[in-house]
């Protein structure tokens, strides 16, 4: 608890722009805190898409605590980097990272998914001004991100647009309509990150397991004219290094990062189990989960 408190203090007094926590250790610790917040909120509200929030937790921390140029005291700062959570059902993960970063209070996480709450089950920008886009119907966020990136170029602004999509989500045709246009408009200020956690809500049976929703994500984005990378989406060091490299490549090509992740990452009984796509832990599960996160499995 003491460690978490220190982290939050730093967040509250952050300046405009990048927070730039340089210590990989500290970022990793932040990701663990984020995972706990995701679980404690889901436990408290008996609700939430836990699996996909845990799979993208390290990506969210690398963005919000190292990479994005944003200002919690002025969420609508017009030169900020934009972030679109196209896989909107993992709003829980996004709210938790926004709380850690100081956009909302930790107390407010308790209102998640509540009637008229700012923290709707799926991100609603008309309720919470820290959100750059409303999402929830899959496939739509990337098109909005493309619009923002075209807009940035027309306004001659150098902010970047980051869009997190799911591997299941990429079954939506609109993702590829958007990719097609990103190439046409040479959107090198657009960075798509696919949280490839290998599971979707239900998917196809494959023996006793479930089939991966997407196995050619990188090749597809490559074919659509993107510059592509593949990364271990749970290696904070690799994520931070890669995001820095990607940012500097203004060569007219849109960017796609395929982040290989594990659904439910950090809690053994949730990992790679599709039933944790949307499910809240009971008392016993919650206690076990916290212990595992604390120990760092």
């Amino acid at each position: 608890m003491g460690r978490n408190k220190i982290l939050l203090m730093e967040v509250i007094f952050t300046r405009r722009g990048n927070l730039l926590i340089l210590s990989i250790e500290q970022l990793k610790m932040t990701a663990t805190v984020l995972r706990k917040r995701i679980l404690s909120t889901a436990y408290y509200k008996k609700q939430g898409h836990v699996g996909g929030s845990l799979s993208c937790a390290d990506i969210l921390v690398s963005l919000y605590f190292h990479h994005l140029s944003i200002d919690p005291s002025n969420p609508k700062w017009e030169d900020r980097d934009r972030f679109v959570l196209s896989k909107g059902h993992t709003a829980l993960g996004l709210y938790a990272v926004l709380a850690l970063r100081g956009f909302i209070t930790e107390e407010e996480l308790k209102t998640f998914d509540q009637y008229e709450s700012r923290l709707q089950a799926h991100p609603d920008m008309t309720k919470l001004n820290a959100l750059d886009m409303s999402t929830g119907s899959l496939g739509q966020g990337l098109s909005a991100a493309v619009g923002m990136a075209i807009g940035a170029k027309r306004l001659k602004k150098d902010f970047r647009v980051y869009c997190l999509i799911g591997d299941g989500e990429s079954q939506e045709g609109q993702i590829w309509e958007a990719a097609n246009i990103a190439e046409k408009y040479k959107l090198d200020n657009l960075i798509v990150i696919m949280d490839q956690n290998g599971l979707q809500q239900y998917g196809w049976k494959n023996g006793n397991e479930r089939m991966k929703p997407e196995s050619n994500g990188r090749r597809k984005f490559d074919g659509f004219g993107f510059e592509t990378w593949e990364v271990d989406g749970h290696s904070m060091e690799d994520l931070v290094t890669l995001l820095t490299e990607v940012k500097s490549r203004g060569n007219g090509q849109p960017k796609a990062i395929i982040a290989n992740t594990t659904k439910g990452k950090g809690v053994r009984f949730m990992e790679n189990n599709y039933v944790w796509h949307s499910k809240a832990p009971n008392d016993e599960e919650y206690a076990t989960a916290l212990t595992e996160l604390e120990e760092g499995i």
Partner: protein
Amino acid sequence: MSISVRDQFGKQLAQLAKDDSRVLTLDGDLGNSTRLDSTEKETADSFLQMGIAEQNMVGVAAGLASVGFQPWVCSFATFLTKRALDQIVVSIAQTNFDVKLVGSYSGLLTSNTGKTHHSLDDIAIMTNIPNMTVIAPGDASETVAAMKAMHQACGPMYLRLTRDETIPSFLPDGSFEIGKGKTLAEGTDMLVVTTGSTTYRVSEAIKQLEDVSITHQHFPTLKPFDKELLLEGAKKVPLVVTVEEHYIRGGLGSIVTEILSERLPKKVYRIGVPDRFFGCGTDEELLEATGLSVEAIKKSLSLCKKQF
């Protein structure tokens, strides 16, 4: 010389884009049909080709609006309002972005292209989306005024346009205020209510009808609807008739019956396209088949007077 609605639309949008750098036009690869190509010709930088991908086009408009632009998205009415419906609801209406959606080639008159291109349910669909304003001007000059008002007002709006080239600028004044209807003629036998391109054909029919005394109201805004004007006209006559180039159910006729049943129960006769698909045909053939030609409207109105 009279200019068609779609030509006027293209011209006016190019003008808005020239005057205001926030205005961008997004084309679903139909610019040379819808006349959105005027913007490309006159102010190329404001024209964004989005290809044959309506869902993404609507989403891109949301993103552009989020960084301060006013995108005008244009395609055929049926493709825009049905193929990209969820995108319109989630990315445009729920966010309340300042995006203008333009459904060209509404109704049946789609240049002999048949049922895949007809749009006979777009009023029903678009008026049922919260935050959405729905506008269907009656002629070219009202289209200009409507577009100016849309440009000035912030928020998601749908502009329903016709491809019909035979409609002259006939409305007595080219004024337009969002949410206001107009009384075009006064009479005692019945109130006839119209919108969009149908207003012209109905006003021609009324001119030629000698034995029926008609009050004619034109509603270029379908949402928000000018209830007070409707009630004022309806209370003076025994019968109300609605005419529209749209399915009978869900369009203007439904809007009018809903209002009257709550506030002023009255006999309403709805003329529109029946609940079936229509194939190819010339504009004349389709209007005749659906009872929407000037001649057919005349017959229906006479019959209404005799029957009720």
